[in-house]
């Protein structure tokens, strides 16, 4: 469990910071009551209502052990044995009140926090940071209060506002204050809050205003709520549009990755490679295996596993491709339709092979931690790292492949051999070798696609089946043998699919895209990048 260890290490770090922060902040407050065993019991046992009440009570007079204990609860590190409450980290139990080590009884059970409880604890923890010396933490705390504005936090917030010197932070805090006062009994206060909140253009604020709106009776306040909501909506609509664009590009990049390998094996070599999807599957399983090996042998470097998985997935798929080429496809050049039959057979065998080895169920591939999260561009637009990385990866593969095919001698031979095998041979090209290289390259790129897919979707025996139709559509729509066409087609279909999906829903969008393909081909019977002139017929 290397990942967990790391995580708990990080948590401890956090606890220390929080505790110090509190210690300093609370220095002057002699009235602070220490955490009692009674309190820990109230916080952990009983129904959620009772626990929430206890939590609020504890929050009224927080001290460092309370904060540490809450953190332990948030980390699911609290167990109970009968009425004894224990904090258990890394298998070692401590008493939350005294902080002394104790023994961990076998009968100890986990304290289960449901969503509501977890939400309350998180909110409490972050509220505690309102007085943290770190401005960033204070902003975060204010934001979290805004998200869960509950009146019990008002006192603490007021105190924080009073002592706040940083304007930016103060503004956030005032917003949070407004969020709480939005539900005040005083209509004027509600009105003022609603007005203030128009400045906080986030979906969270929108939710608050909407919630208020649904119960607001006062006309004036209602009107202000609506005005504020409109302001926010206007601000957010940009994010939505850009978000839709981004999802389209992201889908396009995936389609591109999925199609690039096929652009070689099919587009250039003319092998109707129905096993293309299964080669992606092999790449994905290679990623899975590499991940497993890292977990077992190099847990400390788990986050780096992708660096190995990328070449591994390429090699694994390329190797399988080479074997297939040597054993089967070699005999089928010039008979493209028969490659359909043979590769269909190959795909059945590969799929069942994976079922036999890894089982029929999906296997889990974890993202490295640097791939989770995203950049927050606007309040409602965050671009997930894994999507961004995949877009970058697609560009990388595309550029690499383009250079290889168009600029190198190997690429020239590949193009020559795939166009006229006997003639290339008569000119001194070892066509057998080039064929193997070319096919392996296509397969390897399929493997890379599989590696990328493992980061966002299933890794299972059916992985390939889900993408094969799309892959062919992209390659053909772009114009067979036209790399640039493949890029356009992938991006076009991706964007179109996503823009339509926003309007018509996923099913109709997909249907519309398919119909579009049919109609488009009528206009361009050779794909987007049709080759014109005589060479197209040759």
């Amino acid at each position, binding site marked *: 469990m290397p990942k967990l260890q790391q995580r708990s290490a990080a948590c401890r770090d956090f606890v220390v910071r929080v505790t110090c922060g509190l210690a300093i902040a609370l220095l002057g407050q002699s009235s602070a009551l220490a955490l009692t065993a009674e309190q820990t019991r109230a916080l952990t046992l009983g129904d959620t209502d009772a626990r929430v009440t206890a939590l609020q009570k504890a929050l009224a007079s927080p001290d460092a052990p309370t904060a540490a204990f809450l953190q332990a609860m948030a980390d699911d590190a609290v167990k109970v044995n009968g009425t004894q409450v224990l904090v258990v980290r890394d298998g070692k139990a401590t008493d939350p009140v005294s902080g002394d080590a104790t023994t961990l009884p076998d009968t100890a059970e986990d304290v289960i926090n449901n969503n*509501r409880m977890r939400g309350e604890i998180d909110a409490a923890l972050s509220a505690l940071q309102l007085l943290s010396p770190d401005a960033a933490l204070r902003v975060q705390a204010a934001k979290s209060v805004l998200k869960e504005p509950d009146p019990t936090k008002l006192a603490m917030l007021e105190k924080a506002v009073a002592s706040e010197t940083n304007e930016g932070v103060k503004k956030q805090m005032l917003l949070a204050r407004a969020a709480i006062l939005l539900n005040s009994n005083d209509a004027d206060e509600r009105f003022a809050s609603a007005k203030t909140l128009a400045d906080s253009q986030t979906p*969270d604020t929108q*939710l608050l205003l909407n919630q208020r709106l649904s119960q607001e009776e006062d006309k004036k306040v209602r009107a202000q709520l609506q005005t504020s909501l409109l302001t926010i909506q206007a601000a957010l609509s940009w994010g939505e549009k850009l978000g839709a664009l981004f999802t389209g590009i992201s889908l396009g990049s995936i389609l591109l990755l999925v199609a690039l390998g096929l652009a070689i094996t099919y587009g250039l070599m003319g092998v109707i490679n129905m096993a293309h999807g299964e080669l992606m599957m092999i790449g994905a399983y290679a990623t899975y295996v590499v991940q497993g090996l890292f977990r077992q042998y190099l847990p400390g470097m788990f986050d780096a596993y992708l660096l190995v998985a990328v070449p591994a997935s390429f090699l694994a798929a390329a190797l399988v491709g080479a074997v297939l080429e040597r054993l089967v496809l070699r005999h089928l050049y010039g008979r493209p339709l028969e490659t359909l039959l043979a590769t269909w057979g190959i795909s059945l065998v590969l799929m069942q092979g994976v079922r036999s080895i890894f089982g029929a169920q999906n296997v889990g591939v974890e993202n490295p931690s640097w791939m989770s999260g995203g950049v927050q561009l606007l309040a409602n637009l965050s671009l997930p790292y894994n999507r961004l990385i995949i877009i970058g990866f697609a560009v990388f593969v595309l550029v690499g492949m383009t250079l290889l095919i168009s600029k190198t001698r190997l690429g020239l031979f590949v193009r020559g051999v795939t166009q006229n095998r006997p003639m290339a041979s008569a000119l001194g090209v070892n066509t057998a070798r080039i064929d193997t290289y070319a096919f392996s390259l296509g397969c390897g790129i399929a493997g890379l696609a599989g590696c990328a897919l493992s980061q966002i979707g299933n890794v299972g025996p059916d992985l390939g089946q889900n993408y094969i139709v799309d892959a062919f559509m992209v390659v053909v729509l772009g114009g067979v043998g036209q790399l640039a066409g493949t890029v356009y087609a992938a991006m076009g279909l991706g964007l179109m699919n996503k823009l339509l999906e926003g309007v018509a829903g996923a099913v109709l969008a997909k249907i519309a895209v398919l119909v579009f393909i049919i109609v488009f081909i009528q206009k361009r019977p050779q794909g987007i990048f049709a080759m014109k002139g005589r060479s197209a017929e040759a």
Partner: protein
Amino acid sequence: ADTIKVGVLHSLSGTMAISETVLKDTVLMAIDEINAKGGVLGKKLEPVVVDPASNWPLFAEKTKQLLGQDKVSVIFGCWTSVSRKSVLPVVEEMNGLLFYPVQYEGEELSKNVFYTGAAPNQQAIPAVDYLMSKDGGAAKRWVLLGTDYVYPRTTNKILRAYLKSKGVADKDIDEKYTPFGHSDYQTIVADIKKFSAGGKTAVVSTINGDSNVPFYKELGNAGLKAKDVPVVAFSVGEEELRGVDTKPLVGHLAAWNYFMSIKSPANDEFIKKWSAYAKAKGIAGHKDKPLTNDPMEATYIGINMWKQAVEKAKSTDVDKVIAAMAGQTFKAPSGIVSKMDEKNHHLHKSVFIGEIKADGQFNVVWKTPGPVKAKPWSPFIEGNASKPDEPVKK
């Protein structure tokens, strides 16, 4: 014959193999166990395993073969509703016996089928009740998200009627469907986010099969946290989560009648047995990380009840076994004593709501006070009120 033949009709290839293969192994395990204890009526059980390959007409054909050629006494099989619908006319015509172990949409009651999975009222409705409760987050707005086929459509129809009966307005319900195998949930998740700005929102997911992993990965990606917008799923269990990094999903929910994490002696034993069996048979995936789930439990209950019924009937004759099934009880791994309804061919089941934990297991956060009787004809669908709660003679 000196053996009793048992048909196993689960897809071992094709799209459904992901889910169904393990049910085949569960049946085989139960058969081994029964045989080790001396079989049924002094005879050993002999499994006849076929692969209907996720192909619905093939399900019907294989059923004909199992009943007609192999003369099996009972069939354990099917996962998708459409496969069951395909098999149904055949088992009825040939008077066979089918045990169906998966939660489904109801609206069906056949004399020749025993439904050991949940009807909507044994899964979907309690789950919504929970989400409406304070502990569940007191959701006011609902996204009903499913794969575009009959089980999700029906379930959502029932839920919509139910929600309306609880005063939820139509504008607060957003029904969305994706095609089978849909793998890009960016737009959907963005839409959910947007929708959730309009009020406390919960998502009821009836996404089935392969789409779950990309959906959950996208949820994690988009930072949609359970405490903000909880997602409750009816087709996501331990096995489905095997393929997902669950850390970002902690707190999202599933409603089932069994979780692997349930603490009960019967479950401990069930898990132990399965682990040992998986190891012994080298079942890929499970030999390293054995997992159990709701349909496995339902399968296991089904075959054991069938055995008891045969023993009670002292015969494998289908009609006699059907009669003997009524009121059978079995100490289910879920910790309750599971009872086959006297009339309606469905099990009485407890409903559990579990929250996903970081290790891919579920924390049970809520459960029904006791077993719930199935209502295959949902009262929330017009015209069902008059339906008899037992198979009609044809």
